[in-house]
């Protein structure tokens, strides 16, 4: 009886670990996709390179995470694995690519914030800044996670995130404290994105089971995040913000805005047009 409970718990934890890994991977991929839309269109050549590099880091992180999720899923009986992931086209093997390309909107777990359109340079910078601060504190915690592979991915990623955080903070300050126009655009960007930040700190069931329960309290993540945002905003002469109780939510559980469908239609079309082709 007792051992049955343990087995059940372990199963639940593995399932949650898969969901968490997919959630992290989806955030990275969708951010990578959005940033890559800027490639060739940046305001200065050096910044075009910087942003493309960040997009590349995000795609790289998503690959590490999808590969891990695929590994966990491939260890399960196929039927069980397929019950955990909502594929539209059943892949022969579960791989990083089948996870990225063969799931539709309802199966993606990224936060709503990250699928929002790029807008102008101010909005893009602000979104990267929010993401970087979030990832910085999250990965710092995850480096100590009981799951070694997830901890290792976090450790590797935190180095990149530290650079993204520096780069985006500098831009928030430059734009906030630059010209009247740049400040106005930053204020507009805050208005556009703020309704989505609350979701970052609202745990999905799988997150609670997997890592937040033992070591990462949401309160701490939220207060670290908000303190950092307000600290940089102060230097940038932007008004301090607080997180209210009402916000847009649902992404983590597969309920998205209208934007994600277009991202996926573009991203996945070749894999869906030619199922099982090798590229």
């Amino acid at each position, binding site marked *: 009886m007792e051992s049955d409970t343990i087995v059940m718990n372990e199963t639940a934890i593995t399932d949650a670990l898969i969901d968490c890994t997919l959630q992290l991977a989806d955030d990275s*991929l969708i951010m990578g996709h959005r940033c890559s839309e800027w490639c*060739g*269109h940046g*305001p200065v050549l050096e910044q075009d390179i910087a942003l*493309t590099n960040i997009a590349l880091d995000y795609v790289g992180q998503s690959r590490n995470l999808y590969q891990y999720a695929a590994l966990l899923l491939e260890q399960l009986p196929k039927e069980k694995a397929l019950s955990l992931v909502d594929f539209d086209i059943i892949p022969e093997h579960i791989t990083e690519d089948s996870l990225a390309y063969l799931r539709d909107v309802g199966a993606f777990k990224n936060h709503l914030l990250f699928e929002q359109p790029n807008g102008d340079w101010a909005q893009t910078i602000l979104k990267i800044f929010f993401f970087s601060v979030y990832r910085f504190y999250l990965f710092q915690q995850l480096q100590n996670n009981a799951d070694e592979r997830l901890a290792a991915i976090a450790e590797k990623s935190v180095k990149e995130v530290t650079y993204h955080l520096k780069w985006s903070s500098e831009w928030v300050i430059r734009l906030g404290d630059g010209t009247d126009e740049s400040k106005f655009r930053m204020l507009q960007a805050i208005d556009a994105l703020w309704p989505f930040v609350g979701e970052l700190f609202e745990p999905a069931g799988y997150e609670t089971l997997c890592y937040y329960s033992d070591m990462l309290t949401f309160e701490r993540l939220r207060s670290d995040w908000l303190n950092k945002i307000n600290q940089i905003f102060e230097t940038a002469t932007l008004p301090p913000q607080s997180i209210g109780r009402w916000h847009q939510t649902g992404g983590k559980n597969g309920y998205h805005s209208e934007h994600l469908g277009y991202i996926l239609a573009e991203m996945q079309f070749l894999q869906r047009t030619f199922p099982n082709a090798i590229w």
Partner: protein
Amino acid sequence: MDTTKLSEQFQQKIDEDIKIEPQDWMPDEYRKTLIRQISQHAHSEVVGMLPEGNWITRAPSLRRKAILLAKVQDEAGHGLYLYAAGETLGITRDEMYQQLHSGKAKYSSIFNYPTLTWADMGAIGWLVDGAAIMNQVPLSRCSYGPYARAMVRVCKEESFHQRQGFEILLTLSKGNAAQRKMCQDAINRWWWPSLMMFGPSDNNSPHTAQSMQWKIKRFTNDELRQKFVDVCAEQVKFLGMTLPDKDLKWNEAKQHYDFGAINWDEFWNVVKGNGPCNKERLATRVQAWENGAWVREAALAYEDKKAARQYRYNTTQAESKMPAG
């Protein structure tokens, strides 16, 4: 020293393969030729980001997406080295941009063709980057130091790009019927424009003789084009595909491939702005530049504010250290 004497010394250095450096005396025409060529080359890298950037969000696997992102980023980096090399000749990057945006400066015409399928990413890597390497390897020995050194680095990265392009095509050539068709179609569309990348034939290339005397160029357009045809005619066999030229044939006597006539009418039309994507490519660059104006202004305004704050801080510090009374 009079100009004739300086000119003689200049040519002597060139004949002895001594690099010309930015601070050295050089004839105005040499400077002008280099500015034209280097800026055109820099613009080609930057405009060249667009046709490939067109497929980043649609790359068919995460690995391909990452490679393509890295490749387009490399091209932006090449643009940077080349603009920097151009600046050593006394022109600013903003001036070079203005010349591009006004249509005064050209860029490689190949980027005025559309990228219609994923196979185009392979064909561009194999053929377009391949032709670029053919042109640029000799440029790494060109007489102007900063240009030659930029080319050494550019060529290393380009040869990686070419290999990845060929690998994309090789994968498609082993794929399903649709993929093989895509592969052949891309080769068909990119082959002739790639041959045109070497420029007009030698009897229609007025600058060639002077550029060769100055060792900016080491081979003529036709020599490089022939070399390219010889290489590609062999490589295409590994793909099990064909080059779209019924006159392509090994010539035992010449030890080279014969190939068909190039459509120079098309070449000159695309150069003059009448290619399929000229207007679009240029408009995209102009728009990116104009949309970025407020960002560049804000960055400058912030730097000024920071400098003024630092100045005030330093002044206060100095005053506080002055002896009282």
